[in-house]
């Protein structure tokens, strides 16, 4: 029974992904894709390398800006623009990661947070490029002669990139590299004694994670045809962390589940007669940290595993 769980889950997930824009509002469907990548990238670090990045908005946002610039100024077809954005994010992650992996635990979280804030201020200041507070307006999304102005078609055009990003993450996690990461997370001293260059492994994971976050951020820019400073703000980083913890740390399905939960929750709260969305998200989050540390997905999965 358990042998089939993985493939069945995968098939079900793919079916949902293909069906999605026919069931929910197309704009929301595209958002779900982007945030899924972002949450997975944070989980790649937190769940498999034990590193809590509280500044991942820096990569999500810088890729959004880079993608926007490539689309606006060079008129690149959108998959290339997204790729360029993600590479930019990975490039920025190199120096930040180099400094950040010198520390672990809470220090790592605070350092990534502080650097992200720095990048936020620079983007605010660099008005000629980023548009500052007004944001970067009218980002085109093109793909040869295909008309992508409708979000419905854009969803299907973006889906392969998202699946590619998720697949890449899955490969990383299940590769020998991923196993070394887990070994470092569980016992850094032993990993070091076994001759693994711990810092270099962490740095590589950090940069890869920034790349995946960048894929999401670039698509997000194109989805809204717009980039705002918000994409770089620390609350955006916090939102990704909430998604991962709610869904369940250390399972990629959990990150997917958590991101969908938060995006749908926020969307429905914004039109409900309720002015305190943070109370709900914060409350659910605190409950998860206190009582369901495996997250929503992890708790359900553990339950099912016991039953079958």
């Amino acid at each position, binding site marked *: 029974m358990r042998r089939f769980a993985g493939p069945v889950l995968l098939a079900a997930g793919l079916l949902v992904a293909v069906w999605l824009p026919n069931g929910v509002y197309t704009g929301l469907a595209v958002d779900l894709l982007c945030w899924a990548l972002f949450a997975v990238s944070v989980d790649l670090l937190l769940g498999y390398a034990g590193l809590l990045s509280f500044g991942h908005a820096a990569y999500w946002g810088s890729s959004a800006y880079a993608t926007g610039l490539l689309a606006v100024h060079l008129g690149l077809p959108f998959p290339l623009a997204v790729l360029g954005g993600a590479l930019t994010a990975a490039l920025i992650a190199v120096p930040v990661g180099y400094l950040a992996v010198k520390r672990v*635990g809470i220090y790592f979280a605070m350092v990534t947070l502080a650097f992200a*804030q720095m990048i936020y*201020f*620079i983007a605010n200041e660099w008005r000629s490029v980023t548009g500052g507070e007004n944001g970067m307006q009218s980002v085109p999304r093109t793909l040869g002669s295909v008309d992508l102005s409708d979000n419905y078609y854009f969803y299907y055009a973006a889906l392969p990139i998202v699946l590619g990003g998720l697949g890449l993450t899955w490969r990383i996690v299940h590769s020998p590299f991923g196993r070394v990461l887990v070994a470092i997370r569980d016992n850094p001293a032993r990993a070091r004694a076994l001759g693994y260059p711990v810092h270099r492994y962490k740095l590589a994971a950090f940069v890869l994670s920034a790349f995946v976050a960048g894929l999401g951020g670039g698509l997000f820019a194109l989805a809204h045809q717009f980039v705002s400073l918000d994409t770089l703000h620390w609350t955006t980083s916090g939102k990704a962390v909430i998604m991962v913890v709610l869904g369940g740390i250390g399972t990629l399905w959990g990150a997917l589940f958590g991101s969908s939960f938060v995006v749908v929750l926020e969307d429905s709260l914004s039109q409900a007669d309720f002015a*305190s969305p*943070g109370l709900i998200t*914060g409350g659910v989050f605190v409950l998860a*940290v206190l009582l369901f540390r495996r997250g929503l997905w992890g708790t359900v999965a553990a339950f099912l595993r016991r039953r079958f």
Partner: protein
Amino acid sequence: MTNFLEQTFNGLVSGSFLALLALGLAVIFGLLRVVNFAHGAIYMLGAFGAYVLADELGLPFWAALLAVPVGLAALGMVLERAFIHRLTKLDPLYNFLLTFGLTLILQDLVKARYGVQSSPYAMPSALSGSVDLGLFEFPAYRVFVLGTSIAICVGVWALLTRTRVGMVVRAATERPELTRAFGINVGRWITPVFGFGVALAGLAGVLAAPMRAVNPLMGADLIIVVFAVVVIGGLGSIFGSVAVGFVIGVAQVWAEAYAPESWRALIAQTLPFVLMAVVLLWRPAGLFGREEIA
């Protein structure tokens, strides 16, 4: 020259808030290994505490200065017992996440009750004048803020070096393994020390109420600068956190006053983070921190 001294003095006043917040953060971290993300929200609650006491009970600033930190210490102890305590056996990241969640809740609760517009809070009349400091005149309230903050920092230092609990805290902060190896019971100090650290943030909030905008988000961005301060100083070093708090306050004001004109705002804003990067390259454990607790 006078202007330079005036600006420097001014920077010390702004550094007072960073120092008080960093001190509370470091004391809590010392004993609990918890980085309290909610520290900025507690600072905000401190300011709102002063506002509510004045608005609903008509209590003056001086009463708030005493009552609000005490009240928040009690709240802190309840939070510690109810939530944080449950997670101390686990990876410290869980408490970091927990306090992040608490921040969202506290901010939204205050927002729901008092709105996002800043709430009015008047300057205490006894401190609304100016003081002649020899070279220049300065608003009396600012002199009071700086004086209070220095007095608290010195007081806490005396407490840490002259009393038994202080020595336990200091030992646990700077040599955690060794302290436990000596069989010192750190546990029974945890709840009161958490309350104490929270009270310091609350006090900073009360001090901010007359001179800064009192609104639910006033601590949200500040806490990130305080994080940079403690990383630079070394979280394991109480002295380092306080000293760097003052230094950053002064450095930011200098940048705003004297850096090349078109770069001023950016330099002032990014300075704490640039310094942090430099310190991480050069001394990863922070200026005054020790490697083993990193």
